[in-house]
């Protein structure tokens, strides 16, 4: 008998507060597993956002810091510059990263700060009750877009990975999904690569992870996986946008 799957040491034993079926939990586990597999858990420092994952500091089994809304990249910049030998990451939602913190992420990437960003795109503001995010899809209902998002008044959904990939300092940019088992396995590989890029000192890396919010999408967890596949994948294509030459 041998154990082929069990809770990673990269997570504390605390139970997640996330809603049933919310894939924030899957993403937490992948990050924890990668930190352990790379042997860097002991020198990892994470920066938690504002959003549903505001309590992420309770879940990752490493040093953690909390940042004001959207400012995780600025906090991570400070930590990494003072502690260059530590492995630093931010964990941010799409409201946090693509709305209030847009300037922070762009300039951290532009400066080529050597940390890793885990960007959870669930196309909505989860924590505050389902307001429209810059990433909300056209026609998708939100409390601040009760008839569905309208491009004429709110523009098209923002594709952060494509945008960040135009910045020289952003050396690793990949979009992945956790709506099915194959996607989850690929997502883990991308997270691992992004951390390897940091460990090799090559520059800024980000993994955008398409994720569900059953509660604010107003559908079941199982329906949410399908909704992501049918609605988010066509607009947010999966794939690698940038990999450093050394890492190929």
């Amino acid at each position: 008998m041998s154990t082929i799957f069990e809770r990673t040491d990269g997570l504390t034993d605390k139970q997640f507060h996330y809603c049933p079926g919310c894939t924030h939990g899957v993403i937490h586990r992948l990050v924890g597993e990668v930190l352990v597999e790379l042997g860097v858990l002991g020198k990892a420092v994470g920066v938690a956002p504002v959003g549903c994952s505001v309590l992420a500091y309770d879940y990752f089994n490493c040093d953690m810091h909390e940042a004001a809304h959207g400012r995780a990249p600025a906090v991570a910049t400070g930590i990494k510059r003072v502690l260059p030998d530590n492995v630093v990451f931010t964990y941010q939602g799409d409201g946090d990263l693509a709305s209030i913190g847009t300037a922070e992420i762009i300039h951290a990437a532009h400066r080529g700060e050597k940390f890793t960003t885990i960007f959870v795109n669930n196309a909505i503001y989860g924590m505050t009750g389902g307001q429209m995010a810059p990433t909300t899809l056209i026609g998708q209902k939100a409390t601040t877009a009760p008839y569905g998002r309208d491009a004429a008044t709110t523009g098209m959904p923002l594709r952060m990975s494509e945008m960040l990939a135009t910045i020289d300092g952003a050396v690793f940019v990949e979009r992945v999904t956790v709506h099915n088992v194959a996607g989850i396995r690929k997502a883990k590989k991308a997270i691992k690569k992004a951390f390897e890029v940091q460990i090799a000192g090559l520059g800024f890396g980000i993994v955008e992870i398409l994720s569900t919010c059953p509660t604010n999408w107003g559908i079941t967890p199982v329906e949410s996986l399908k909704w992501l596949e049918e609605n988010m994948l066509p607009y947010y294509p999966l794939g690698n946008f940038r990999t450093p030459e050394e890492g190929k």
Partner: protein
Amino acid sequence: MAKRRGRVIFQEDRCKGCELCTTVCPVDIVKMNKSKINVKGYHPATVDEMEKCIACANCATICPDVVIKIETIEE
């Protein structure tokens, strides 16, 4: 050749009844236990026909609450 079989262990009181694990099992043995309510107030996921498990770990991979542990049994 020995066939790989698995044993799936649920930390039932951590289960939130989301049903994601029931959608990914290739031999369709992960079910919600409708005759039980856990400490959180949900019907927890369970496996009755454990002998059919092929230890693919799909159920544990998609579980957002890290409820599932998987062991292999060699026979």
